[in-house]
């Protein structure tokens, strides 16, 4: 009996589950404690991943690590300032236009309600109070817009706060990440030292290639859609392109969700017509075809190893609990968990304690 219990407890799957559980708990505690600066940390990690090859390149050319990091950071800050100077006038102009258009939204809705009411009265013999329907719709939209503007406001507060901290954290990550990582790995017991490194290396290489693939997919989709919307003469092409690129990352539901923003923008334009709606949908359709035929099989094929039911349930639950961010991050998080557990299991099969037979 004791042998059976020891056999179950020391089974590689149990050991992997225990270590995975402890790791998950540590991540949860970290996320809870670091939640006020989580956005800043994610942004810094992204910059670290993007700048790391440049720093390595400079080190290869005989620069000291600190000097290489400082040069890379200065280059990025200059680029960010230049981009802000170039993009700010365009964005502020588009935002002003959109605000003006949104101010006349109530008139457009009332006009639409009157048209529908006339059509219903003509065909069915009875009508409804168009003004009341329009007022209700505008009130509901106002509530949603207020909620959205407060969340957007807090998002921009986060961004402003991050702008101060991100360069600092990125600098230290670029300078000391390897040292910190090695120090943490040093805390492993001798027996699991090599296993720890094997799991870390395989997991990070798979996750990096997945993240790289998804980023290429999102950027390609955004570019295709931006160019398509611009050629079709649809307003706010860059913003719409980025939005469609992000929505397309959501499995199963993204393919439908991505079609909503361009259609809404066309309907809110000065002269909404049927042809523009068809063109907007055609652009998204072409981009999604390119994505399905070319991008998905080549750059994110590894994610296909997840079972469709796992992905569907994961996306639904993540969307329910964490909203839009949850929808976008569901698949990468499930994929990471699968890779890490799989590697731990594989490692414990080779390195684990000998079980009683």
């Amino acid at each position, binding site marked *: 009996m004791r042998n059976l219990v020891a056999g179950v407890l020391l089974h590689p799957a149990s050991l992997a589950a225990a270590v995975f559980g402890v790791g998950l708990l540590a991540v949860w505690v970290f996320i809870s404690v670091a939640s006020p600066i989580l956005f800043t940390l994610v942004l810094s990690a992204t910059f670290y991943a993007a700048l790391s090859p440049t720093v390595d390149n400079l080190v290869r050319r005989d620069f000291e690590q600190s000097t290489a990091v400082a040069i890379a950071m200065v280059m990025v800050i200059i680029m960010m300032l230049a981009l802000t100077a170039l993009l700010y006038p365009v964005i502020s102009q588009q935002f002003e236009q959109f605000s003006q258009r949104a101010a006349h939204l109530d008139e457009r809705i009332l006009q639409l309600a009157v048209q529908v009411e006339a059509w219903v009265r003509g065909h069915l013999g009875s009508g409804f109070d168009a003004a009341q329907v329009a007022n209700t719709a505008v009130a509901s939209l106002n509530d949603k817009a207020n909620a959205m503007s407060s969340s957007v406001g807090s998002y921009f507060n986060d961004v402003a706060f991050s702008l101060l901290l991100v360069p600092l954290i990125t600098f230290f990550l670029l300078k000391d990440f390897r040292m910190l990582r*090695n120090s943490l790995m040093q805390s492993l017991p*001798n027996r699991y030292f090599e296993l720890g490194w*094997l799991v870390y*290396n395989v997991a990070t290489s798979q996750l990096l290639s997945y993240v790289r693939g998804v980023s290429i997919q999102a950027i390609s989709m955004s570019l295709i859609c931006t160019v398509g919307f611009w050629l079709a003469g649809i307003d706010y092409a860059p913003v719409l392109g980025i939005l469609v690129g992000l929505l397309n990352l959501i499995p199963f539901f993204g393919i439908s969700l991505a079609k909503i923003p361009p259609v809404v923008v066309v309907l809110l334009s000065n002269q909404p017509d049927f042809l523009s709606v068809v063109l907007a949908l055609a652009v998204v359709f072409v981009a999604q075809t390119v994505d399905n035929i070319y991008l998905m099989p080549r750059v994110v094929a590894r994610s296909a190893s997840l079972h469709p039911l796992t992905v569907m349930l994961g996306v639904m639950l993540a969307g329910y609990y964490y909203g839009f961010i949850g929808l976008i991050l569901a698949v990468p998080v499930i994929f990471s968990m699968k890779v890490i557990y799989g590697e731990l299991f594989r490692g414990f099969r080779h*390195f684990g304690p000998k079980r009683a037979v």
Partner: protein
Amino acid sequence: MASEAVWLRLFRPKVDWVEDACALCEKNPLFEKVPRKSIRWLVSRMHLRTYKAGESIFSMGNAGAGAVLMLAGEVSVSVKDVELDRMRRGDLFGEVALATELPRTAEVVAIRDCELVFFLRSDLKEWLAIMPKEAARLLQNLSKMLAQRLMDKNKMITQQENQ
């Protein structure tokens, strides 16, 4: 399992052993014609571990993460309880794992308290990305060492067959 506390491992100063390990690497055929500056850069990224007498360093059949340089102590290399060799300060073993993730071909156990420096395959990959010329020199040395070992094994098998 070593009884050393986690915080001691985290904050152990590195500098003391780096110079010592650099000097040993310079004498090892694996680092032949690799510039001293590059060796120092690489060694500063290696990992010092301490083992008590009797502790297993790695077991036969386990996947290997890298090679091991002996800084102090003595280890026994054996296969199926037959001792093949003993390694001491300056010796390097497990270098096959630098080239590939094949299972370890022998059991290595510490005979006395040891200080070992792990040179991992991932360190070599990072080095290859940052200093490709120097890393290529090391890979060339590694392939020479492995080819020599293969020839020695072939010679031994032929001698055994002749007897």
